């Protein structure tokens, strides 16, 4: 296309979008006093915005077509970091030092925010097993998170069960729900599975909301105990301590999860998950039990969600159904998709990106979900492998055969 044609095309597109957004973005009606505000400025902005956006869109589209596999410069650098033990060790050291000293350098507020980000890292890594590795699109992941949180809240409320007992219990209950749901639904095709899990997530939330006698309805459960520190209850006035403690606790879980998922990825089971994601029929023809393999991934993902659920209840000391909406599932899913399905560093980056950015740029807060949605579409169109695509392990056999 000639530049002139490009410009003409972009003008057409921008006119189309001005037309498209006209009623919703220009007209604003105030239903109370029946007045209309005409926001012509919005139309101009849409026009200019889409004019340039369409340029970039075509540019990137042309780039993605054809050389989809060529690693980008960033990817190459990352590969380099991965494969070079010195650099990766040094980076890891700095990272560990930073995370360890975080609560002592930054304020309580910052620590709290960071803890939340770390919790989403764990949730992301957990869902990553299900979606990224095994390729099972679970849109109701938050249900298992809720199961964990309510398990602890109820056990604590009625029987005074402590955090440390509840943590494995919550994980178990969530795993149980995972298996219970998994057995019938994992037979379904990918897109049906997505819808059933979504339906299941909504059912759980609606039950929590409406079955007041058991789950205390929309008002939720408060005064949940924080975790005890080696048997010592942390009293109210030491909240900063409790927050620090919580931080390290979640950090520990993050490290354990990374360790675990990393080992899983390069294990017999992990490979079977990835193979299942690639081609179910070939997988079965290779002697892999499809149901069982899917079920392990699903239940393991649920277990992790359950654990984070218990931690969430302990951290906020108050839970209600509003924390477990479909949007929460969507956020966790976009962490995985944005970060890079199957990639551990990708998911970590994705979690920090999606949790910290809106937190620090409060004005962005309103645009957060808008940006999530847009980024999911853009990622799928231009970079389906995510920010950091996952890298398969290389095997080195002997020096005489240099590996490309």
């Amino acid at each position, binding site marked *: 296309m000639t530049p002139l044609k490009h410009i003409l095309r972009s003008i057409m597109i921008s006119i189309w979008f001005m037309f498209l957004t006209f009623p919703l973005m220009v007209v604003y009606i105030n239903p109370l006093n029946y007045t209309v505000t005409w926001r012509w400025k919005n139309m101009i902005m849409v026009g200019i915005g889409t004019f340039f956006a369409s340029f970039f869109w075509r540019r990137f589209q042309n780039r993605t077509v054809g050389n989809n596999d060529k690693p980008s410069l960033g990817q190459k650098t990352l590969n380099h970091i991965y494969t070079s033990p010195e650099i990766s060790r040094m980076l890891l050291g700095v990272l560990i030092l930073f995370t360890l000293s975080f609560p002592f350098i930054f304020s309580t507020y910052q620590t709290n925010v960071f803890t939340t980000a770390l919790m989403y890292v764990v949730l992301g890594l957990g869902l990553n097993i299900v979606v990224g590795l095994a390729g099972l699109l679970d849109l109701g992941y938050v249900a298992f998170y809720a199961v964990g949180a309510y398990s602890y809240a109820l056990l604590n409320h009625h029987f005074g069960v402590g955090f440390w007992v509840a943590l494995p219990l919550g994980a178990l209950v969530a795993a149980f729900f995972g298996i219970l749901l998994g057995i019938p639904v994992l037979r379904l095709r990918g897109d049906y599975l997505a819808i059933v899990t979504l339906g299941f997530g909504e059912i759980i939330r609606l039950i929590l909301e409406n079955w007041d006698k058991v789950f205390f309805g929309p008002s939720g459960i408060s005064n949940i105990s924080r975790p005890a520190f080696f048997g010592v209850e942390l009293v109210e006035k030491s909240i900063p301590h409790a927050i620090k403690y919580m931080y390290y606790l979640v950090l520990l879980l993050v490290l354990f999860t990374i360790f675990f998922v990393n*080992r899983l990825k390069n294990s*017999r089971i992990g490979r*079977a998950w*990835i193979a299942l994601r690639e081609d179910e029929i070939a997988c079965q*023809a*290779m*002697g892999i039990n499809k149901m069982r393999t899917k079920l392990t991934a699903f239940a393991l993902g649920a277990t992790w969600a359950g654990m984070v659920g218990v931690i969430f209840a302990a951290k906020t000391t108050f839970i209600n159904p509003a924390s477990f909406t479909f949007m929460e599932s969507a956020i966790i899913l976009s962490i995985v998709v944005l970060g890079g399905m199957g990639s551990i560093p990708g998911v970590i980056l994705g979690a920090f990106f999606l949790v910290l950015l809106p937190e620090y740029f409060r004005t962005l807060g309103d645009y957060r979900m808008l940006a999530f949605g847009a980024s999911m579409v853009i990622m799928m169109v231009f970079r389906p492998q995510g920010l950091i695509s996952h890298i398969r392990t*290389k*095997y080195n*056999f002997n020096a005489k055969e240099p590996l490309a």
Partner: protein
Amino acid sequence: MNVILDVKNLTMDFGGVRALNRLDLDIRAGEIVALIGPNGAGKTTFFNCITGIYNPTGGDILVTPPQKKTVRVNGVKPHIVTRMGLARTFQNIRLFQNMTVLENIMIGRHCRTQSEILGALIRGPKTRAEEEHIVHYSYALLKKIGLERQVNEFAKNLPYGDQRRLEIARAMATDPFLLLLDEPAAGLNPQETTDLVDLIHKIRTEDKISILLIEHDMKLVMTLSDRIFVMDYGKKIAQGTPGEIRNNPVVIKAYLGEDSDA
């Protein structure tokens, strides 16, 4: 020679279409048998029934693994059939495209190994030994088919001919006693076809694996097979040695009646 696969009266209906019509076929240990017939004759459907991907409407599929009792495998799950020792390739290659060449073969070892989640987490001596076995076994297989230089290449980046060979190696990794190849020479150039013939011979003589193959390349079929079965419209229309099939008027008619590639 004992019969390792005995198919009797096999019938498969899809709605109104009868893709297999009372088909009989048998394979003895150590044989290379070819299944030929025009496109749409039902050959792939036959494979799918044998390997548990479809559940046949009628008939019997009897499998006799070496030193084991005969089992009827109608409607048995595909992964169980593979564990019993039947492995296959697909007409339209079904590799795990985004996994490496080595990993593709390692998946083939899955059904002969054990370690589970806990093993992966703890990675004790048993798991490590098993993992080492998987890697080395797979690498040895790669060497056998001459793909050892591409260990870490993604399967999707291999040339077509190599993909076909990789799929065969992946099937071999499951330790089969009978290998089912669906059009293994389709899309190969003459050199690759010659290599394939050598490979199939090698698999039979060195690994003692029997082979059932679907193929359109008549030269290959005639040189390789001990016996040939001919199908048309879901029915068996002839069977015999290459010499017998070459001169069978029924077969010639079936092929001449078909004007697409035969």
